C-alpha cells in the first residue's frame, strides 16, 4: 500500500535520510530508532510536510511526492503528530468531529465513526462535552488517535505516541494500537522498542537516517543488536 524507496533528505548539510526504503502492506509496521534518527522526518516526508531531495513515495500506486499534504490526507492517510494534535479549548466531541470535517469523503460517515471511536475508547463517550485540554495526558493521546481514525483511514501514521506517558498508560496505548491494526494499516514511529514491538507485526530500525535492521517483530526482539542497544539486555 505504502512504498518508500531510496529516500534522501538533508537539513542544510546534515544528511538525515540516507537511501531509506520501506514498505507497509495491510499490516502494522514499526519504525524504531533513537532521537534524531530521522523518524519524524520520514513521517513528514510521507505526508508531504517535508519534500525529500531524492527518492519516491507511493501510496496505492500513486506518487505522493508532489501532492499537497491535505490531498495526501484525503487520499486515506491519517497522521497523529507528535504535538499540538488537539484543540485544548474545544470539547472532546468537537475535536473528534474535526478529524473528519476537512476530508470530504469522510463527512457522511461521522455518526458511524463516532460510534466506532466510543467503542474503541469508552472513556471518551463519558467526556464528550469536556474540554480536550482538561483531559489527562493519556486521555488526550487516546483522543488524538480517535480523532485521526474519524476519517476511516487506510493507513494510520503515529509519530511517537508513547512520548511523555506514564508506563501503565503506555501499555494500554499499545494495546489499542494493536486493536486498531486489525482494521487499518499502521506505521508507527517509536523509541519505546520493548513495548511497541508487541503492537506491530514488522519493524525497521533506523540509525543515522538509514535502515540498520528490519524483520518480523519476534525476530527483532531476539536480535542481539536490538537487545543490546534498545532493550538494555
Amino acid at each position, binding site marked *: 500500500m505504502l512504498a518508500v524507496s531510496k529516500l534522501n533528505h538533508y537539513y542544510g548539510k546534515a544528511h538525515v535520510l540516507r537511501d531509506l526504503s520501506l514498505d507497509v502492506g495491510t499490516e502494522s509496521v514499526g519504525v524504531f530508532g533513537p532521537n534524531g534518527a530521522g523518524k519524524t522526518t520520514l513521517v513528514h516526508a510521507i505526508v508531504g*510536510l517535508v519534500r525529500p531531495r531524492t527518492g519516491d513515495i507511493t501510496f496505492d500506486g500513486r506518487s505522493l511526492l508532489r501532492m499537497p499534504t*491535505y490531498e495526501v490526507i*484525503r487520499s486515506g492517510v491519517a497522521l497523529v*503528530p507528535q504535538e499540538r494534535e488537539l484543540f485544548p479549548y474545544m470539547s472532546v466531541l*468537537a475535536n473528534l468531529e*474535526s478529524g473528519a*470535517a*476537512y*476530508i470530504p469523503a469522510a463527512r457522511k460517515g461521522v455518526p458511524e465513526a463516532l460510534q466506532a471511536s466510543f467503542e474503541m475508547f469508552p472513556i471518551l463517550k463519558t467526556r464528550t462535552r469536556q474540554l480536550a485540554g482538561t483531559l489527562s495526558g493519556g486521555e488526550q493521546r487516546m483522543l488524538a488517535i480517535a480523532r485521526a481514525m474519524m476519517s476511516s483511514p487506510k493507513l494510520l501514521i503515529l509519530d511517537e505516541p508513547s512520548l511523555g506517558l506514564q508506563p501503565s498508560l503506555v501499555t494500554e496505548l499499545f494495546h489499542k494500537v494493536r486493536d486498531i491494526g486489525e482494521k487499518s494499516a499502521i506505521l508507527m514511529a517509536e523509541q519505546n522498542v520493548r513495548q511497541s514491538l508487541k503492537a506491530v507485526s514488522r519493524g525497521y530500525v533506523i540509525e543515522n537516517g538509514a535502515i540498520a535492521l528490519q524483520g518480523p517483530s519476534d525476530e527483532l526482539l531476539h536480535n542481539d543488536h536490538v537487545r543490546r542497544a534498545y532493550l538494555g539486555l
Partner: protein
Amino acid sequence: MRIARYVPYLVGAAVAATFPLFSGAYLEQVAGATLIYLTLALSWDMLLRSGQLGFGTAGFFGLGSYAAVLLFLNVGVQPFVSIIFGGIVAGVVALLLGLAVLRLRGMYFAITTLALAGIFAVVLRNFPSLTGGAEGKMLPSCIFSGDTANVYWLILVVAVMTIVISEVFERTRIHVALTSIRNDERVAKSSGVNVFKYLVFVFAVTSAIQGIAGGVYAHVFGFVSPEGSFSANFLLLPLAMALLGGIHSTWGPVIGALVLGALSEYLKLQIPYGHLLVYGAIIVVVILFLPQGLSGAARAWRGRSHAARGAR
C-alpha cells in the same frame, strides 16, 4: 434560563436599531463613524484568527471608496450598487494579490499588505483624468442628501452583516480550520485542511468587507482623495479597537470599537487631536495589562468568580 442568555443581545439589537429615534444628528454621526470603525476592526480580526497579521485594512478601504465613487460618477448607477461594487473590487483585488502574498507569513505578510495599501494610493493618484489625482473626486451630493438617521441605518446594516459573517466564521468548519492554521500550520495540513485556499478565501472576504465600508464612507462624506481615503487612521484605530476589546472573537472587536469610538469622540471635544495620544496610550496599557483585551479580562474574571463559588 436559556432565554435570559439572549437578553443582552436583544437589548443591544433593539437599542442599535432604534438609536436615531432618541438621539440627534450629532450622536447619529458619531455612532455611524464608530460603526464604520467597528466593521474594519472586526474584519481585521477575522483575518487575524488565521494567524495572519494584515495591515492592508486602510488600503482595501480606500480601494473600495474609489471604486464606488468612480463607478457612481462615470456610469451613474444607484449609490447602493456602487457600494457593493466597491466591495467586489476590493475582494477581487485581494483574491488576486492573495494568491501571491499569502505565500508569505508573519512580519513579511504584514509589511507587504501595508505596502500594498501605499501602492493603491500612488496608482490612483497617478491617473488624474479618471481619479482626480491628488485632489480626488467630489460627489455632487451625499447619500440620502446627508440625512444622518438614514446614514446611520445604512452603516448599521453593514456592521450587522459583518457581525453575522464573523459569527458564521466562528460557528462553522471555517473556525477550526483557521484556528488550527494559527496554532500550527503543519497540524492543520495534516488534518486535511487546504491551508492556502482558506487563507485566500478569508483575505478576499475580509477585504471585500473593508471595501464596502470604504464605499459607504465615501458616499457619506461625498468625496475621495488619496490622503483621506487611505488614511492610516483606517488601519490604526480599528487595530486599537480590536486589541482593546480582545482579539480572536466577534464580540471583542465589537465591544472595543464601541468603547473606543465613544471615548475618542469625548476626548476629541476635550483635547483636540489629543485623542490620538490616548489611542497610543490605550494600546500600550492593553498590551501590558490586558493581553486578552476587555472580553478576555471579563472571561477571566467570570472564571475566577465561578471558581470562587465552586470552592465555597
